């Protein structure tokens, strides 16, 4: 078999696989609002402000409403030690509070 044909078959396999993955992604996106309807109700009815991803530190459990500098505020000279602190970026300027 011609080598270029082998490459073409290889690319076709990737094309079919990636096409199937993209189709599945589209299906998941389409069914998302239906599946997550109860999550939207929970957010509104309980006034939730954050996703429940990391529960080890308050600044990664509730980054939207906790102190943005909390990693260094636990005590004087305190250093960040929670592993999740290395995944989550500091919200920084985006948490600037409204001023009168």
């Amino acid at each position: 078999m011609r080598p270029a044909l082998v490459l073409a078959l290889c690319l076709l396999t990737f094309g079919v696989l990636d096409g199937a993955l993209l189709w599945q992604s589209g299906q998941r996106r389409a069914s998302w609002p239906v599946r997550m309807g109860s999550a939207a109700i929970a957010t509104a009815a309980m006034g939730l402000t954050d996703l429940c991803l990391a529960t080890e530190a308050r600044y990664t459990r509730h980054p939207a409403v906790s102190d943005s500098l909390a990693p260094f505020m636990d005590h004087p000279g305190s250093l960040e030690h929670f592993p999740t602190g290395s995944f989550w970026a500091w919200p920084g300027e985006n948490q600037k509070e409204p001023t009168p």
Partner: protein
Amino acid sequence: MNRALEKQLNLLDYTLASLRRRKLKNLGIMIVFAAVIFLVASFQFLTASLTATAQDLLAEAPEIVVQKMSAGRQEALPLSYLAKLEGLYGIRTVAPRIWGYYFSETSGANFTILAVDPALMPKGDRLFQALEGKLPGVGQGEVVLGSGVAADLNLAGRRSFSLFRPDLTLKPLTVVGNFKADTDLLTSDLIFTTPDAARDLFAIPEDHCTDLCVYVANPREIGTIAKKIAALLPATRIVTRPQISQTYRVVFGWRSGFASICLLTALAAFIILAWDKASGLSAEEKREIAILKVLGWQTGDVLLLRCWESLTVAGLAWLLGCTAAYIHVFWLDGELFKPVLLGWSVIHPQLKLLPAVAAPDLLLIFTMSVVPYLAATVIPAWRAAIIPPDAAIR
């Protein structure tokens, strides 16, 4: 067949045969390259999906949250602030919330305990749709549990359990419902109860709450009302819905430490690879180019050959890396990144994320990986191809 196309196909055939001759080396480069692309693409897909999921699920977060600050920290807020806010034109509802954390000594898990009167909240009358069971009743110490809390408490059919108050007396609680699995990304560590039960558990006085959720009549005025509240209530922190949304747009950014490590690792791997390639071709490769030129190949043909070679290796690595990254993030819930994303958390919610794979992300990964690799391999080939063939063979 078109002559130009036939020429390209012949070149491709020769390229593939050439790659096959050095299959161990080329396969090694492709696998390492695919692994680097997999790492970067996994991070990109995961952060994009977390951001998209947060934007979607938190679209109905409180419009304004008011917290009282003292010495740089949040503290309980007096309910007398409610009366002050009632005088502000444009505010529709103000709902006091009581919430806090409870550390379980036995399992090391952190629970979030939240209490609010659903009657004061938007869609509060539909909260029962988010749970299996019933809503907690006032004065009865009833709670609804998130799936992570239920698994951690391991009640095994029992409905009663107790938590410690600050003075170490026990507060008895009764489970009357569980949040649905669909809400897991929001409620996994949540214990939802009534304000009186939460006050009792946290020993918060009757005339205080943790913070206030403020809803305005016109959502366009959120910023204006937030400024008015800040002027009216000094020593408070005001967090608006657009700020919450913006926080989740940046919190998983490339500047976070782990992303930097991923990107720097990828960059270092690429620099080593490019340096190895750019430092020159091997004597064998130079001789091959010289023989091709003696046989009548032009410099352009040699460059095309190298282009095909690099494009095949880098392109296949890109396809392999991106496909594996997609499967890793959306089918295997990002298992490799979970230890860093969740850290020491004892409660692990299911990461069923909204797939968010955008063409710009794929193009960015392609540009960062394939294009520099092409440049790093074609330039040395061009330098070798312009040397007279007899000099190269000698």
